[in-house]
């Protein structure tokens, strides 16, 4: 128990040391090199302005988190359903997968105006943009997982007369879980990027509707540089939230059996 506590402390010690060093260098550089605030504000100024803009940042955070959740969950649901379909039918896989690749190859940036024409300014378009960014890593990884069940295990299921659905449910889906979570982790990291980008092109202007991306656009047009930095740190929190939750979920689903979570001396 004591050793475990030590381990946790140790894992915080070094990031803390590096963080403090970094802050020191930051203060030193700004002071000695006489960097103006509109280029690099001092950390305590970022904190001050962040607190001052607190209500705006907070509602931006909520709005963007909401968009992230919508985009993330629709892409997970859509991605999983599509992957299962592609795994059940070889014809579907060969017929549809190239088009998914094509969609993937098309940068979302050029699709955004079309999406806005279809879904209008606001949360609808932002969700679709987030969806498009998260969708591919989920489909690519899950499909690969569903199609790569061990040959020996496939034979095992055939010997015992398993139906296609039984093989899907009891073999291919569990075998695909580690792949699925790999895709999910990539998607989780991309989610805020999608939502924030969506916000900058399709975000709506006022009050509680303004997502963090839109807030950033406003701050930058007003040259509120310390607040801009505060917004960046706030956005970072969303990324941590999503990646953290997915890591937790992955651990929960896999730690009993998957080698990635193998404990030594077990």
């Amino acid at each position, binding site marked *: 128990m004591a050793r475990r506590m030590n381990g946790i402390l140790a894992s915080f010690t070094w990031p803390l040391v590096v963080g403090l060093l970094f802050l020191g260098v930051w203060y030193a550089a700004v002071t000695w090199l006489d960097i103006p605030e509109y280029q690099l504000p001092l950390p305590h100024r970022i904190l001050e302005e962040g607190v001052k803009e607190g209500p705006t940042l907070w509602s931006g955070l909520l709005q963007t988190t909401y968009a992230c959740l919508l985009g993330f969950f629709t892409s997970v649901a859509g991605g999983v359903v599509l992957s299962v379909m592609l795994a059940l039918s070889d014809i579907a896989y060969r017929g549809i997968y190239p088009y998914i690749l094509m969609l993937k190859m098309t940068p979302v940036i050029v699709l955004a105006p079309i999406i806005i024409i279809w879904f209008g300014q606001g949360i609808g378009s932002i969700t679709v943009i987030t969806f498009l960014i998260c969708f591919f890593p989920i489909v690519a990884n899950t499909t690969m997982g569903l199609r790569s069940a061990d040959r020996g295990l496939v034979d095992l299921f055939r010997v015992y007369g398993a139906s296609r659905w039984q093989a899907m449910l009891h073999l291919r889906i569990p*075998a695909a879980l580690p792949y699925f979570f790999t895709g999910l982790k990539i998607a989780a990291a991309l989610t805020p990027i999608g939502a924030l980008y969506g916000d900058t092109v399709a975000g709506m202007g006022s009050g509680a509707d303004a997502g963090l991306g839109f807030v950033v656009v406003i701050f930058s047009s007003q040259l509120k540089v310390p607040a801009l930095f505060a917004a960046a740190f706030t956005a970072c929190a969303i990324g941590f939230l999503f990646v953290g939750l997915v890591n937790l979920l992955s651990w929960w689903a896999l730690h009993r059996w998957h080698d990635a979570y193998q404990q030594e001396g077990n």
Partner: protein
Amino acid sequence: MGVNATRAADDRRALISLQGVSKEFAPGQVVLDDISAELPRGEFLALIGPSGCGKSTLLKLIAGLISPSAGSLCVGGGAPSASEGKLGFVFQDANLLPWLDIRDNVALPLKLAGLPRAQRDERAEAMLEMVGLSHALGRYPRELSGGMKMRVSIARALATQPEILLLDEPFGALDEMTRDSLNEELLRLRELQGWTGVFVTHSVAEAVFLASRIMVLSANPGRIHALLDIDLPYPRTAHTRTDGDYHAYLTEVTRSLHSVGGHD
């Protein structure tokens, strides 16, 4: 009386019958050529031969996993593909599902057959007790040694109480001591359950110790080189390994294997 008469006729008829079975995966590449054999109930047949001669292919044909290019097979009175439930298969390197604990692994064939949970668990636990793994029910495959995994695999194959057990180099990856004790255990299970078996092995000693008959195959194409009866009485135990007849059979099978170029 009628039932007994039918049973007697059944016993005389082969449980597994191969008639001129050939298999080629690609045109002109004959893997197995004209294999014919009759296995009566209770037979324990060993397949031995050089690597790549088609031993696993022959097992898969019997299991109905692949179909022959020529000839015909009859398993338990029907086509191999319809033999599920009658047949258990012990795969090379255990082949357990890593995400299921030991009990659920053994219960898998029963689950696929649609048995309700309570019955599955009861049967799986009984099978695991039989192979001496009652203490490991809730453990996962990655936590087990190679020998324990193989015992789980055998318990799973026997869970459906099959008439026929097929084993593909079940103990090939194990050390000799583990292998010997698992061999004895397998014979004990056979005594208990009376299934008919076909197994592939690279070990002449294992073949002679376990089998009632040994099929020596030659390679390219795989043909029957010899079919040897092993007339050592069952039950065979550790003492059998010091028996003079046992060693005579070892010599005979080793010679036969040498002449097809299959010695290790």
